[in-house]
């Protein structure tokens, strides 16, 4: 079996977001770019499966739609342990465009399991994974919190409101993963970093696609009003404020 992990390249999660001139994008000066946290977890799970001979998973490939400047993030995924990588050489103007490119990759190469994250921490769309599956005409399962392979068949836990379902779906399938898929992200060891330099990154040119959505403006959240402090000697006052002033209890 072959697994493809789709990774997006996002600002480090502690970044203080500042807007660029014109307020339609963010100011990227000084930003550290990292693998989207979910994608780091799906990569980790994919590698755990590959490293377990019983799973039948032989290789883990990562795919990314992005310009050459995002190669350090791809190299990081290779250093963590992915076998090889694919980069589609394009910016990612919207989910539709990105999904179209990834679906095109699936036409060129066969994978049994494709993993996407529940959301990218910049766009927060939760859209790309499902679109890729529909474009490729394969089943998708969303909110996947565990994935194992039993006797060649993927066994999945799906989170539902107030519980979980254990289910099977025949491969090829696309899993949109969330919390639980792996415990801690695997980190790159020195050996991995050395080896990553020689692992192949295949570059595809994009196919034409028309973005369907566009961010025309960004705003910072309205500053919250100053915090009203209640003295620790009278906590009951807090309850009065919540009832009489905020009117939430």
């Amino acid at each position, binding site marked *: 079996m072959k697994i493809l992990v789709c990774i997006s390249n996002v600002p480090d999660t502690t970044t203080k977001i500042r807007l660029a001139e014109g307020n339609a994008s963010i100011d990227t000066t000084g930003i550290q770019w990292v693998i989207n946290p979910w994608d780091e977890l799906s990569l980790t799970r994919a590698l755990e499966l590959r490293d377990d001979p019983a799973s039948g998973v032989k290789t883990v490939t990562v795919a990314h739609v992005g310009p050459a400047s995002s190669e350090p993030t791809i190299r990081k995924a290779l250093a963590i342990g992915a076998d090889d990588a694919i980069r589609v050489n394009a910016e990612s103007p919207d989910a539709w465009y990105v999904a179209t490119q990834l679906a095109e990759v699936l036409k060129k190469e066969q994978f049994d399991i494709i993993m996407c994250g529940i959301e990218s921490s910049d766009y927060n769309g939760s859209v790309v994974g499902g679109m890729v599956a529909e474009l490729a005409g394969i089943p998708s399962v969303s909110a996947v919190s565990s994935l194992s392979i039993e006797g060649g068949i993927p066994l999945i836990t799906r989170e539902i409101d107030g519980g979980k379902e254990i289910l099977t779906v025949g491969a090829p399938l696309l899993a949109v993963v969330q919390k639980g898929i792996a415990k801690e992200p695997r980190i790159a060891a020195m050996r991995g970093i050395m080896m990553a330099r020689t692992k192949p990154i295949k570059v595809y040119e994009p196919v034409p696609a028309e973005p369907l959505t566009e961010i025309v403006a960004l705003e910072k959240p309205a500053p919250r009003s100053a*915090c009203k*402090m209640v003295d620790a000697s009278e906590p*009951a006052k807090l309850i009065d404020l919540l009832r009489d002033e905020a009117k939430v209890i």
Partner: protein
Amino acid sequence: MSVLVYTENWDGKFKKLTFELISYAHALAGMMNTSVTALSIGKTDEEELKQLARYGAQKIISAENELLSSLDNQAYTGVIAGIAQSENAEVIILSNNNAGKALAPRLAVRLKAGVGPGVSRLPLNLSPFTVYRRAYSGNAFAHLVIRSDVKIITLAQNSFELTEVNATAAIERVNVAVDPSSVKTTVKEVKKQSGKVLLTDADIVVSGGRGMKSPDNWGPLTELAEALGGATACSRPVSDEGWRPHEEHTGQTGKIIAPNLYIAVGISGATQHLAGISASKYIVAINSDKDAPIFEAAQYGIVGDAMKILPQLVTAVREIKK
């Protein structure tokens, strides 16, 4: 032309979030001069379906087929896309919950529609169709233009007030055709949490962090949640340590919630934690460190020892609830 709402049901019942969706759709249809159709998939009885009209559905379609008893993304997409086409829907609205996130992007491809995910207000503009949504994990909001003819919106939970309009609606029951070979998901087992208020449904959430010091200290925190009729939550290190179950973890890599009231106890307020709770209407912080960043996100705060303050809050709540 119409606005179509996918109304998920839970064992035949709708939830508050369903009525939020319909209220939103009703307001949007007003802006667009069109009407609201609600689509329910699976068994729901007449009385339950009629509730949708209370919030503004003018037509209610209940689609049934035994093969649709659990969510199969492809089969459900097929049903919703079919109804969207026959209803000539210009906007399709789903919840931004697990099912909505699973279905919206597949529908988008089927209908060649752009998606506005996690929308929290009515469109800022109809032409071009511009929605307002969370981005950068709550550190910014985006004005997103959707350029396609058909538009799909997933509505952020707890972002729109319920409005009763008491419309009357015709209920249409349809037996949809589903090709058995097209259903690819086989659910083997369902594990449901019972009894407790679900974190994703709760209007009030009481949440504990590492400042709670030990899993044995959660008693007064759960009592406070119970007294308030709320749910319990926690920060990531707390669930990583196994002090609390994983379902309770909120934040960037956990659940994203937007209750009316979020009480953070012994939580420092890291950006990754705030990413999951910043859309809450009110945030209360209880922390022994007056400089903890959580106080910058909160509207009410107490500087002090959680173990001393929590029991007093429980007493105070019980007092006013009498």
